[in-house]
């Protein structure tokens, strides 16, 4: 005992020699996005070599467009996952929001923007309810959002059928305010003969904002801690419950935004659309380095994860392969990413 205590009386400053030895490459590999960046380069080169149409700028623009529709949602889903939760309802929530906007505006013959705002309120409410149930009951978000996923899916199809007697929402392109809403949510520009959709710009902007929040603001600190060790976070005064509810609402917000983009691009929405997309968002986040258990990951990683998904999605078509193989490749990518992430986390968590 006395010996125990005497040892540190002459204190050599405790140095962590491992830090000095870390090479720049090791530092890069320790970033959450590292695996995704390497994967994205490999997959780009792969399709660049085997699929000649992939090399065109216009093809790449369409890869980016597909990427952006998933990437928009992958961003808040990644934040939510860093915050330690899932949202399985994210895929159908996009459709719910678009259906709500179009049905409300069409049935009540309002300005398109009224429908847009009602849909925003609904999406935020769905996010709030998901988050509120999760933090109040402590039930895993996987189960809670699995429930809301099925409820929304049923509502989407049943309500659309009841109201319109069809499986899709009515065409709203004749409504007032439609063109201005389209200009905001679904415009496209032609640059050098290549058509670029605004969703790509929005995706990059939202990803940048999310990254800034994560790394530069106290909110980011709170998100990491809420996922990494909620009990510790609570003990030092982080409002973990509010952070988590906020993250679910951020997913709701982006579901609304993505829904509006789709709605004003096609004028109408299929009520069964969006099912299965929640997994794409989660895959993008995980491939991008987010830990399923929370507390680790990045928004940029999720963007790269979405890009990998977009490249494979389009690359298979450009390579002239049977698209039936697509999900096989996505599954393999996911498994590879998870193995890599587990390895990285073990290294990060390994203590002396």
């Amino acid at each position, binding site marked *: 005992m006395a010996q125990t205590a005497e040892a*540190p009386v002459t204190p050599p400053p405790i*140095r962590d020699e491992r830090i000095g030895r870390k090479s720049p490459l090791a530092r890069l590999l320790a970033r959450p996005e590292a695996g995704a960046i390497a994967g994205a380069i490999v997959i780009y080169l792969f399709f660049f070599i085997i699929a000649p149409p992939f090399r065109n700028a216009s093809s790449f623009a369409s890869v980016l467009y597909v990427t952006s529709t998933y990437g928009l949602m992958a961003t808040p889903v990644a934040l939510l996952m860093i915050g330690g939760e899932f949202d399985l309802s994210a895929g159908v929530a996009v459709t719910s929001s678009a259906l709500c906007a179009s049905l409300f505006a069409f049935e009540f013959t309002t300005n398109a923007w009224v429908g847009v705002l009602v849909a925003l309120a609904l999406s935020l409410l769905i996010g709030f309810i998901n988050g509120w149930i999760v933090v109040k009951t402590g039930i895993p978000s996987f189960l809670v959002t699995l429930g809301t996923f099925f409820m929304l899916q049923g509502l989407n199809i049943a309500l659309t059928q009841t109201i319109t007697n069809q499986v899709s929402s009515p065409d709203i392109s004749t409504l007032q305010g439609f063109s201005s809403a389209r200009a905001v949510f679904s415009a496209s520009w032609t640059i050098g003969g290549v058509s670029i959709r605004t969703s790509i710009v929005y995706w990059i902007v939202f990803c940048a904002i999310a990254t800034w929040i994560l790394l530069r603001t106290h909110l980011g600190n*709170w998100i990491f*801690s809420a996922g990494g060790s909620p009990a510790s*976070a609570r003990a030092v005064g982080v409002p973990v419950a509010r952070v988590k509810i906020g993250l679910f609402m951020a997913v709701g917000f982006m579901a609304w935004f993505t829904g509006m983009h789709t709605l004003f691009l096609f004028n109408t929405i299929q009520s069964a659309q969006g099912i299965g997309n929640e997994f794409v968002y989660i895959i993008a986040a995980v491939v991008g380095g987010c830990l399923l258990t929370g507390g680790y990951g990045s928004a940029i990683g999720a963007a790269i994860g979405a890009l990998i998904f977009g490249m494979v999605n389009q690359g298979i078509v450009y390579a002239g392969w049977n698209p039936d193989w697509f999900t096989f490749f996505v599954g393999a990518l996911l498994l590879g990413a998870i193995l890599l992430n587990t390895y990285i986390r073990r290294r990060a968590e390994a203590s002396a």
Partner: protein
Amino acid sequence: MSTPQNTPGGNPRHAKDPAQAGTPAAGTAGLRKGNGNGNGGVPLVRLVNAGKRYGAVIALHDITMEVGAREVTCVLGDNGAGKSTLIKIIAGLHQPSTGTYEVEGKAVTFDSPRQALEHGIATVYQDLAVVPLMPVWRNFFLGAEVKKGVRMNIAFMKKTCKDELLAMGIDLRDVDQPIGTLSGGERQCVAISRAVHFGAKVLILDEPTAALGVKQSGVVLKYIIQARERGLGVIFITHNPHHAYPVGDRFLLLNRGRSIGYFEKGQITRDELTGLMAGGAELEQLSHELESAGGAAADIGHVLSEEVQELGIHHEPSAGSDARISQE
């Protein structure tokens, strides 16, 4: 560890019987070390006859204890002795059902840990101290981030974190490494220096050495001394008398929610402390019972009572003190 044993002015005082603890004499305890709290020797934290019931369960009964500036009060007890209930009361998670809780001489009622924190009472939990995957500096300022406009003042936080850890004797080359890469002892110390930085006057350390090896425990004990030298009051919860004795100025022993002794350093030896923790009184009781049973059991009883004598934990203390073991 010579410092705590020869604390200047550390006159042995009589152990307080809970029944007398409310008298003004108890209030002068802080004077022993004098200058620390600048508050006329009023203890920073004092519980008087505090108890806690959860429904019909009496988790804590009639506990009296205090800690002043530049003092370490150790709370010892086995599992289920009521240590966690005691911390929760002091940390503001629970309110005592009976008795009073005073901070700097004034009776207080805390509704939340945050209120306790505002009074300078910070708790460092054994396993809740940090978020392993987050960098050291983010952990350090978690929940109390320094802002520059909307965003965080990262450069300032990194520098402050490095400096504060250096003041505690931890020289980290890189405060950006995940705190999970630090050793268990260092992690505790980051949590301690964080509490000190954010103006804690009293630190409650919940079993900081429980999960640590011998060497790491030593590191943590060193930081407890360091915190005391910086003028803080420390409440050190542990079940290990070997960790408590070298750093402690007072010792509160708990068993089944009751105090089985409250001592100044000068009133008890390490062996006596160990014996009490090992349940000396119970062993003694057992030996008497066996002896009175006669036959072979009596022989075993003799052996037991001899062991109790050797450990120095028998009921009649050798020197002086009359109220060494305060009992109900």
